[in-house]
């Protein structure tokens, strides 16, 4: 790939669902037709569909690899295809080129790959996302897919793999940040019985699209990670649960499973160890609570996604009573790179208590929205201001940012004054928010915090499974009270009630959904209390 002389000229077109919604399909069709039609001299560039190229706001994105260098373009339309191909077939940046108005127009679409948005990224989970064709197993193999699985099967025992993951300090990326190696040990050390592994691809947090990007852009990486996890805990069967709202991810994953099984990379007994692993895909049907691990298992078993009390934890008794390892998609997709570099080297990235890289999806009021993978411990400001560019037209030291919403409906809002906070699990929790799965939504000053809290509370009320009363009734009551506050009909006594009820719901709900449903409310009360108080009625009831 690095060899400039022989590297093919290729056009990598982002074919993830974000860029598709921005018009990648029409661009692909125009490029395809122009390349079919031929014309021009010299070798014809190859059109390659790839996964997420990161900068969603500027989509559809297209990378031109030419002579060992790469240029990224954003927002191209079919009309610009001939000019683009002229550049691709000849040499970029010649002197005539600069005078041609069509070339100048095209250059206006060229994105600066040295911008911090790209330069500060540290891709490990996403190291081949955007480079490989997600529909082509041979291309994935050429980029190193399944190499770690095969190396470990040949050279390491399951206990050694677990030790390496423990050494890395990797913590689950699904939100809770539980140490992955510890969870694997728990599953592996249960009494003898079949074990199962489950990849959690429910990704229900609004504002999160990390797992979707992995599945759409590099499905074989997830399969390799899942197979490694299965080997490490002694499982031969696994499920990948993907939400139904991600049809393209489902299509690509299904194809990848078939390819890997047909090629014997999965499903067939390894000659040395006898290890054979069969993954199966399960599609959700639109229920946020199914991301919770015990609800997930109930859904895989074909029932309503209703959580149950833990313990026993799924690691002890999960699907059909078998010890079941549940890991998030990103956790599993981190494994191939982690095991290649070794646990120690991985642990050296980011803070000691929370090492490695994390993928974030950045959206909301920012100039550059999209996907970033950065070392843990980086400051929020670096991500949302330096990389994403702050609020469009925003002024002041904080770039017009009012707050950053992290962790979706179970997270909270951090005010601009706390933008220098390093991102890690404990740090954000101490400030009343949470890292969650990695969605960062930037809020500008037009956003009313009580309104946002009301929105999330209504979301949780709609997604509550109804099993336990604090969550079922409490979220509805809280949403009603917040609605009353928004209509300026609530009193200080109502606000007291809101706070008390929030504490009850947090402390007494059965599962994480109810326990965290009040978080957006509580965190905005903590940091933006005046926005609540200024909407209150005066206390004297006869005035209302």
């Amino acid at each position, binding site marked *: 790939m690095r060899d400039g002389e022989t590297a093919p000229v290729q056009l990598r077109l982002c074919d993830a669902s974000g860029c598709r*919604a921005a018009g990648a399909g029409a661009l692909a069709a125009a490029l395809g037709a122009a390349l079919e039609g031929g014309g021009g001299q010299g070798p014809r560039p190859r059109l390659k569909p790839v996964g997420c190229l990161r900068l969603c706001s500027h*989509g559809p994105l297209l990378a031109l690899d030419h002579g060992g260098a790469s240029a990224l373009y954003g927002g191209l339309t079919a009309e610009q295809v001939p000019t683009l191909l002229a550049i691709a077939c000849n040499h970029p940046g010649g002197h005539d080129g600069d005078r041609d108005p069509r070339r100048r127009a095209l250059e206006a679409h060229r994105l600066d790959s040295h911008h911090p948005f790209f330069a500060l990224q540290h891709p490990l989970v996403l190291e081949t996302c955007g480079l490989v064709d997600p529909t082509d197993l041979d291309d994935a193999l050429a980029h190193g897919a399944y190499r770690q699985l095969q190396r470990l099967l040949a050279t390491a025992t399951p206990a050694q793999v677990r030790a390496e993951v423990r050494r890395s300090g990797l913590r689950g990326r699904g939100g809770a940040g539980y140490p992955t190696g510890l969870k694997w040990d728990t599953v592996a050390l249960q009494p003898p019985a079949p074990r199962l592994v489950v990849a959690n691809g429910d990704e229900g947090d609004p504002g999160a699209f990390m797992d979707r990007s992995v599945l759409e852009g590099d499905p074989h990486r997830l399969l390799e990670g899942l197979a490694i996890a299965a080997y490490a805990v002694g499982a031969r069967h696994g499920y990948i649960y993907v939400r139904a709202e991600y049809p393209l991810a489902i299509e690509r994953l299904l194809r990848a499973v078939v390819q890997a099984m047909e090629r014997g990379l999965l499903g067939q007994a390894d000659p040395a160890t006898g290890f054979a692993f*069969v993954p199966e895909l399960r599609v*959700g*049907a639109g229920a946020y609570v199914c991301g919770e691990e015990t609800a997930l298992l109930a859904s895989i078993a*074909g029932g309503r996604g209703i959580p149950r009390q833990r313990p026993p934890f799924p690691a002890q008794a999960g699907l*059909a009573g078998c010890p079941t390892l549940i890991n998030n998609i990103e956790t599993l997709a981190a494994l191939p790179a982690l095991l290649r570099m070794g646990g120690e080297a991985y642990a050296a990235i980011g803070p000691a208590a929370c090492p490695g890289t994390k993928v974030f*999806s950045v959206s909301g009021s920012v100039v550059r929205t999209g996907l970033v993978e950065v070392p843990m411990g980086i400051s929020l400001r670096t991500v949302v201001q330096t990389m994403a560019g702050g609020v469009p037209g925003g002024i002041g030291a904080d770039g017009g940012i009012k707050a950053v919403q992290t962790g979706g409906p179970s997270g909270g809002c951090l005010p601009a004054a706390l933008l220098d906070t390093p991102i890690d699990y404990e740090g954000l929790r101490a400030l009343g928010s949470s890292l969650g799965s990695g969605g960062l939504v930037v809020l500008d000053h037009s956003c009313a915090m009580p309104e946002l809290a009301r929105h999330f509370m209504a979301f949780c009320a709609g997604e509550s499974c109804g099993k336990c009363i604090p969550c079922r009734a409490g979220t509805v009551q809280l949403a009603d009270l917040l609605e009353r506050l928004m209509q300026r009909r609530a009193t200080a006594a109502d606000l007291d009630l809101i706070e008390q009820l929030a504490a009850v719901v947090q402390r007494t709900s059965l599962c994480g959904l109810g326990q965290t449903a009040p978080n957006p409310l509580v965190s905005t009360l903590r940091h933006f209390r005046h926005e609540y108080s200024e909407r209150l009625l005066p206390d004297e009831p006869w005035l209302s």
Partner: protein
Amino acid sequence: MAPETPFPQPPGRLIEVLHQRQQQHGHLSRTTLAMVAQELRLPPAHVYGVASFYHLFRLTPPTPHRCGICFGTACLLRGAAALAAAQAQRLGVRLDDPAGDGLWSLETVSCLGACGLAPVLVMDGVPRRAEAP
């Protein structure tokens, strides 16, 4: 029990079967649910319970055309509510009324993970970037 199944009870396929039937018929009618219950030897109440639990299973026939408005956080901040109101007026239907005007209906959908392009709307299943009204 299939011999290659490594655990005691193979998980049920009910949700997959419901997905298939909905794809065939557009929705899950009472008759369809009763048939599924019979085929899988499950209590009808269980089948109805599962079908009604999940948001994406429709128990009434959908309109021929549907417009979805994403109400994820990013879309909300970038004007999803105004977009929904504008679409409701343009189509002459109420938001989240599955009957719509018989031809079109307008519904809120949960986050599609296309937050980078917010606000997003879904025309007959195809998501695309909408201009904020």
